[in-house]
């Protein structure tokens, strides 16, 4: 019987205590969780609603120039925060390319990190899914999988993490603040999500009952603001998950790339930062040749998990695109079609 406790704690400590009971799930906006519950995909025994927990909805400037974003900050509130968007434009662009306006008005930062894959076999309780039920098998492996992972997948799971927001966050070195029974700890976002391996049901390093309270971007991440973009390829112009996406942030000195930050979305079970490609660009002159070398390095380990070999070349190309746009400079205003290849790119020669 699908009965569950519903508790609405008043503090973070109360929330963590309430969630210590096995089978608990935190509820923020519920844009993903409630659908999963209605579909019988998730059946938590207890919902711990964070709506009344204070201190989770602030966007705070930090002394080092960074920012601390409360876990319950809404996607839209963050994307439209002028100070935030100015210093971290690629993050704002990624946020605004996700979902629909209605969903962005509700969905939260913490929920975005923890959203589940869009693999259709995960959502279909009649299909075998190791992520939904450990050891059940993977019906996606031989199924309809043209949008599945090309990096970091295993025989047990080929699902991708669907977030846009996490892609620039991971590139910019975001840190996740976590509160648990044992106190507070911090984990770099890059180490937050787990690759499937033989335990695809374990998607992050969160221990049961642990709560994301904030995500922090370090001050140095704002150093890429002048050359930072997010590009997202999708099967319609809006309201679709990425086929593949990429972010690029560049710090240019004397016409050369002093530092690059690159990550891919829609290719793996986590937002996929590519330090190998970043290294290729260090000291290079921005241009098609260097960008393509970086893209080759980024996808060197990629292999298809099904009918999706095209995603590998597509990922290379979209990384080159993100780099090209970033090198041209962040636009004054976010385009009306954020992250879309169909957004106008005045003054940028993209295609010869």
């Amino acid at each position, binding site marked *: 019987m699908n009965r569950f406790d519903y508790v609405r704690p008043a503090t973070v400590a109360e929330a963590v205590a309430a969630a210590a009971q096995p089978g608990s799930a935190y509820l923020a906006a519920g844009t993903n969780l409630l659908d999963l519950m209605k579909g019988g995909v998730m059946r938590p025994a207890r919902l711990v609603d964070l709506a009344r927990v204070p201190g989770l909805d602030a966007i705070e400037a930090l002394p080092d120039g960074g920012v601390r974003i409360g876990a319950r900050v809404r996607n839209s509130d963050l994307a439209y925060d002028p100070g935030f968007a100015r210093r971290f434009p690629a993050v704002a662009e990624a946020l605004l390319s996700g979902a629909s306006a209605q969903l962005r008005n509700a969905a939260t930062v913490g929920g975005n990190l923890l959203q589940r894959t869009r693999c*259709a076999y995960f959502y279909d*309780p009649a299909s075998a899914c190791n992520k939904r039920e450990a050891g059940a098998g993977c019906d996606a492996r031989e199924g*309809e999988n043209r949008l599945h992972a090309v990096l970091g997948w295993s025989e047990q799971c080929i699902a991708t993490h669907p977030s846009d927001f996490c892609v620039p966050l991971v590139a910019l070195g975001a840190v996740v603040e976590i509160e648990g029974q044992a106190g507070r700890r911090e984990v770099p976002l890059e180490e937050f999500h787990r690759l499937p391996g033989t335990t695809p049901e374990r998607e992050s390093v969160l221990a049961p009952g642990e709560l994301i309270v904030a995500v922090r971007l370090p001050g140095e991440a704002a150093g890429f603001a002048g050359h930072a973009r997010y590009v997202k390829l999708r*099967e319609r*112009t809006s*309201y679709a998950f990425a086929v593949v996406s990429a972010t690029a942030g560049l710090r240019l000195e004397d016409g050369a790339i002093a530092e690059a930050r690159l990550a891919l979305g829609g290719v793996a079970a986590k937002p996929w930062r590519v330090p190998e490609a970043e290294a290729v660009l260090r000291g290079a002159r921005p241009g098609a040749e260097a960008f393509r070398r970086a893209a080759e390095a980024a996808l060197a380990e990629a292999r298809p998990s099904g009918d999706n070999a095209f995603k590998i070349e597509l990922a290379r190309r979209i990384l*080159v695109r993100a780099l090209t746009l970033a090198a041209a400079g962040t636009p004054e205003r976010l385009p009306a079609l954020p992250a879309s*290849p*169909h957004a106008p790119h005045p003054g*940028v020669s993209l295609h010869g």
Partner: protein
Amino acid sequence: MAELASSAAHVRHGSSIGQPLTRRDGQLKVTGGARYAADNHPPGMLHAALAVSSVARGRVTGLDLEAARAHPGVVAVMTPENRPALAQDPNDKSGPFVFRMELLQDDTVRYVGQPVAVVIAETLEAATEGAALLAPRYAAEPVSTGLEDGEAFVPPAVGVGAPAEVRHGDVEAGLAAAARRVEAVYETPAQYHNAMEPHAVVAAWEGDRLSIDTPSQGLVMAVGRVAGLFGIPPENVEIRSPFLGGGFGSKGAISGPQVLGILAAKLVGRPVKLVLKRDQMYGPVGHRAPTRQTLRLGVDGEGALTALHHHVRTASSRYDDFFEPSGSVSHTLYASPAIATTSDAVRLDSGTPIFMRAPGEASGSIALEGAIDEMAAACGMDPLEFRLRNYAEVEPTSGKPFSSKALRECYAQGAERFGWSGRPLAPRQMRDEDGLLVGWGVGTATFPALMMHGQARAVLRRDGSGLVETGAHDMGQGAWTAFAQIAADSLALPIDQLEFRAGHSGLPDAGIAGGSAHTATAGMAIHGAGADVIARLAELAMTDQRSPLFGAGNAGVVAREGRLVRRDDESRGESYAEILARAGLDEIEGRGTGAMDQAAQEHYAMHAHGAVFAEVKVDPELGQIRATRLVGAFAAGRIINPRLVRSQYYGGMIWGVSFALHEAAVVDRRTGRVMNANLGEYHVPVNADVPSLEAILVDEVDPHVNALGIKGVGEIGITGSAGAVANAVWHATGVRVRRFPIAIEELLGQP
């Protein structure tokens, strides 16, 4: 519908027909006042939820009935064991369009999503959870899911009783003699209707009388089907369907789940509401079947077609027949001395396919328009010039003249508005300021001008006002408004003096809202009913010595703005009210019928036509496509309400974009499950996918289709549009993609 608004902003200038009135139900809809089926809550109502199969073929071997029944709030679980008896076997097929239903007649499973039990409970939540607790167990059998599976056969008929093969002239000889030949295979996927409003029913029994709120595109047909199944007289069945949140063919015949809601009400002896969940619409309520179409074309040295062969492979369900008639467009569109259309089909473990907006024409048009474009390119001709070269002056396969055909004007006006003359012949020549590839494509639109059979009743009241009623269906297309316009003119009254009633099974049969025939059919019935009233009224006046119209005789009288006047002297006349008062009548009633004129149909081919021009932009490296501009020019006879008609064209054109670029059911080939059975992943265009849309209404007077000259506009907009978009993608990229929707990966070959 007394609450329907009459817009004071629209001043009547002699005629309501032709006025761009805003829809009379618009205010109700935007304020939430329009009552859809699922908005009804009769006292004592229970909620029903379906448990549906997750396998495509086999038997249900077990249900956890105890768990479901034990759930608080659950009142009953309906299974084959306790389902109330029916007077007809749901597997009986008494006619080609009486479709077999799954009404818990046994434990057989025919497709994924088939209802296998119904849980009835005090709340929707309890019913839903009860249904989940049933956790069906199955004995599953191997399934067929693709057009390659199983042995193909030639169906006895396709579409609505059309022959599976049509041959005109000698195609093989035409191909052999051709200077150029094109052979191409086009594939279209299974598509699902996805109306905004899911199928819903609120059913209440009182003895052997049944009252239902449910969306229907065919009220009287639904009454007949329900009465037959339950063994009660049709007059005992009342269906209210004032508004549909879209139908697109899936609400033409009443569906299994709707009947299950009625059965559930009978089982528990209380009113029951059953509303399909979105994912439950991918199975029991029909879909557009997948096709694989092989087109073989030959032309002579001048680019004139010598042969056209259009072969369609499609699929029906394993247990019933509906065959997508994709070849029909080739009968009509282009002149050729030899034309053949052939069909074969396989049987799949899916629900039975059914009519889906422009059934046959939509899937056939995108393939034919693609192949025509390929041939134009092979000939080095502009695709519009090629189409004009092969313009059909008479219907090619029948040899009949067209009742009217303003397609040349559609081509000309559309091309002019679009700016087609600047189009480079070769593909991959145009770029925008951002370097995106730009392509322009054209497609020809066509849809037959059909009529069903319908009736209407008109009444003039002593106060001079009018009442017109017919059981017409407003699916969102604007029937409440367009029919009221026709009705007002039929009685020569201002529209605010006219009460119009529709959407109820107790009213005269308006026929089916399908085949783009509703406006013509019910419109002609209304027109006839009004004329009947006016004739009776004129008879009263002209035979009454006290009337100024006495003895008008051969000169006759005409109706003008609530008055009858002498045709030869319009200053002589009197008001309707005066005539009725003197005759001592409270009202006067007339009847009308709308039906196809058989004689005209024997002599003429009757079709609406159009030309659609599309611009797409494609990212040359990333392959993402966006349709940036569509201009459609359509000729469909007389236009009752240009504002609503334009909306119909827009909707159709957007569906064309969807067909070419977005829409497909992703079917797992091992299980037959639709893996994207939700509006998040089953992609239809969002606003950003169609930035600029124009529909031109090309004048066309058709004296043969019917007295009003109406051809119908509901479906033609998809045809032509889908092909135009696909052809524009070729023109942008140089890549001819023949499988729809066009996928990003198809365009990555050439960076």
